[in-house]
């Protein structure tokens, strides 16, 4: 793999006009990645999902250089109907279209910057990989006091032109004081057997609100890693929703630093898996100052021989008195072969806190099914009703009613 990496790296930087300093940083990252390789189960954070093995098994040899073919035609059929929205279209990891037509001019700034800054505090090798190979990174800044009138949808599309490729993407968002952004990540893959490595960095200033909805709904054979780093200032709110369903393997990771008083973070997630899919959500919420709040709810429905993993950690620093932290994960296992693993973790150094977590997994309640069948439903209807009710709980947590309805339709939950 080492030779391939070096060769692809040379090709990648050749096409970019980079300063000497940037090249050095990228080289440094590359060396780090070569040393560490893909994360494997020996690392505590990857204990339940051995990425190295998964890539070897599903993809084999990866190529890290994607040929720079100019504009792939944007396929408008992937666009969502029935919801007016701003768009960013990504094809095979390249930004093809940015469209903020619904917003006031001058309130949103898009900064193209190629300089490489390693701001991620997680020490896994994928951030090194991302640093070494991202070609262009964008920063989207929402100006002070501006609230986007329509949500922004980022279309992550891939097409059949790539195969066994590694795609690295990096986006920075800056929400200035009193601003608000609703962001939907919509994954739509036509390609097979690629590894997508996506890093987001959010900087939330005072009183700003971020709502991020990640929807991985469509069936595909790709392997994905999504990392969100969220820095929160005073009174800011972040809400993250993850629908984890379509890809062969998906690990969504959220690292949230609650730096300012009265800031709060909400993470809600649904695993709806079948076949031999393997998905994971890992969250780290760092309560670093007084009066901060976090809430997490993860529910899974697992069919066939699918596997879901939830690793959630609440960290409370000794200054962070009056913290309120809550975490709940529930899973329904529908098949003998399915598997649910959880590691809900609390690390607490302050005494005046309210922290709790709960985790439960098991089968569908036969008594409930019996109850429904005795009222005239057949087995499948009863089952569906129970599962929908189980998942609806999470969807109802979405605070934006437009998007709530959109996601309800996507999952096929009728009220």
């Amino acid at each position, binding site marked *: 793999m080492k030779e391939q990496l070096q060769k692809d790296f040379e090709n990648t930087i050749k096409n970019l006009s980079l300063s000497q300093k940037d090249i050095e940083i990228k080289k440094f990252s590359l060396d780090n990645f070569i040393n560490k390789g893909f994360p494997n189960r020996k690392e*505590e954070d990857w204990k339940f999902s051995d990425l190295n093995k998964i890539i070897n098994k599903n993809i084999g040899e990866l190529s890290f250089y994607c040929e720079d073919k100019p504009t792939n035609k944007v396929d408008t059929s992937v666009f969502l109907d029935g919801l007016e929205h701003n768009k960013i279209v990504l094809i095979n990891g390249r930004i093809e279209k940015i469209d903020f037509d619904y917003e006031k001019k001058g309130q949103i700034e898009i900064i193209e910057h190629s300089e490489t800054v390693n701001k991620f505090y997680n020490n896994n090798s994928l951030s090194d990989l991302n640093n070494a190979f991202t070609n262009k990174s964008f920063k989207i800044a929402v100006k002070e006091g501006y609230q986007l009138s329509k949500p922004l949808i980022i279309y992550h599309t891939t097409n059949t032109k790539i195969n066994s490729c590694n795609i690295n993407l990096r986006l920075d968002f800056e929400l200035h004081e009193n601003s608000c952004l609703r962001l939907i990540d919509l994954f739509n893959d036509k390609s097979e057997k690629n590894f997508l490595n996506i890093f987001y960095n959010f900087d939330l200033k005072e009183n700003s609100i971020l709502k991020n909805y990640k929807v991985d709904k469509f069936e595909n054979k790709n392997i994905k890693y999504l990392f969100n780093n969220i820095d929160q200032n005073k009174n800011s709110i972040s809400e993250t929703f993850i629908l984890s369903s379509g890809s062969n393997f998906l690990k969504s990771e959220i690292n949230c630093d609650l730096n300012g008083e009265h800031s709060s973070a909400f993470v809600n997630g649904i695993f709806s898996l079948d076949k031999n899919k393997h998905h994971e959500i890992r969250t780290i919420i760092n309560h670093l100052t007084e009066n901060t709040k976090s809430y997490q709810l993860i529910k899974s429905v697992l069919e066939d021989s699918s596997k879901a993993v939830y690793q959630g950690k609440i960290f409370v620093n*000794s200054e962070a*008195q009056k913290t309120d932290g809550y975490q709940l994960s529930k*899973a329904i*296992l*529908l*098949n*003998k*072969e*399915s*598997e*649910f*693993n*959880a*590691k*809900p*973790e*609390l*690390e*607490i*150094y*302050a*005494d*005046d*806190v*309210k*922290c*709790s*977590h*709960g*985790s*439960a*997994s*098991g*089968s569908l309640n036969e008594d409930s099914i019996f109850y429904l069948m005795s009222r005239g439903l057949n087995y499948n209807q009863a089952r569906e009703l129970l599962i929908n009710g189980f998942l609806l709980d999470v969807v109802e947590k979405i605070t934006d009613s437009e998007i709530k309805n959109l996601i309800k339709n996507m999952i096929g939950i009728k009220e």
Partner: protein
Amino acid sequence: MENRQKEIDKLKDYKYGFSTDIENTRAPKGLNEDVIKFISNIKKEPQWMLEFRLKAYERFKQLKEPNWQKPKYPNIDYQDLYYYSAPKSMDDKPKSLDELDPKLLETYKKLGIPLQEQARLNGIAVDAVFDSVSVATTFREELIKQGIIFCPISEAIQKHPELVKKYLGSVIPLTDHFFATLNSAVFTDGSFVYIPEGVRCPMELSTYFRINASNTGQFERTLIIADKGSYVSYLEGCTAPMRDENQLHAANVELVALDDAEIKYSTVQNWYPGDKDGKGGIYNFVTKRGLCKGKNSKISWTQVETGSAITWKYPSCILKGDNSVGEFYSIAITNNHQKADTGTKMIHLGKNTKSKIISKGISAGFSDMTYRGLVDISSKASNSNNYTQCDSLLMGNKCGAHTVPYIKNKNSESNIAHEATTSKISEEQLHYCQQRGLSAEEAVGLIVNGFCKEVLQQLPMEFAVEAQKLVGISLEGSVG
């Protein structure tokens, strides 16, 4: 009230902190094949036992010391320890309590376990382990009438080799982790219990461990076998003198429960925790594992952990037999600079197996406490159930409380439920108690005892009283 105050004053410091001045026989310092041969020789062990030890030592040499645990400790120089230390008077085994060195008798009397009296009173049979040897075992004759074997393990190796050979290392194999393997190579003494088929042990069996000599490690090994349909309740207590150095205690405890058998294992661990600045104290790195081998068997662990500078142990149950039950009740209290990383593992292999985990952690001062547990329901363990509850109580903002549960469910017909909370003693509760005339310290004691009640209830009566007191003492000075 006055009496109670006096009692508390008396117990204020670590009251077991004295050491006994007694002549010792020691193995040469360090760890090598010769030392292992020395231990085996002095215990007059058969060849197969020596081979067992040497095999473990070979394995040990290849193993690396683990370091994933939360409490870090300075490197231990395994060549700078004495692996065997015993009172000289034990070289020729005394045949009865009357022949026992009076100094030893005195020591146990001071610890509150008067061996002679205990022998006369009805109730609990005691095996007293002093450094590396078992010095006395009471009530043996009475137990033997029912076919129960309760003796030091070194004696069992000679007298009941067939049982020891069959079960030793069957739950904790030679090739287990670093400390367990070290124990297999150099273990010195401990208790051996065999309960024959269909016998309900008429009294509580107990072992009292005492570290006395300095610069030694204590490596005891306990093996309890409950044959079909039998029942036994076993207690374990431990203390050590106050010293500025850290001493290593790496024990192995193996339990085997056959069809319909039940073992109840209770520990009140009160090793010397070190002084207020965290100097000295015992490193308590213990491997405890029970195997529910037969159908309908049950193993229940209860522990009250108040001592040791560092506690690092996970009493576990392997639920192999169908319908078997595993239970774990724990109170862990850390104060000053103590650290604990404790919890349990419940491995469900058989059908219809059930497990229950109740863990209560209390941390005060500058201490750090971690609950780490594993619940693993394998794909064959249909219709299994687990319930876990772990609550932590924090006193002050200089201490830490952590919960790290690992939950693995591979069976769709099985249920796992886990909940954990972390909180502090609320002002309202304190206010209510104080309003009714209790001092702040008494109020805390009362609330903490209530917090721990679920676990304390599981202890046998005599132990429960002691444990309740211990809970109060361990938290002394943590209020305000």
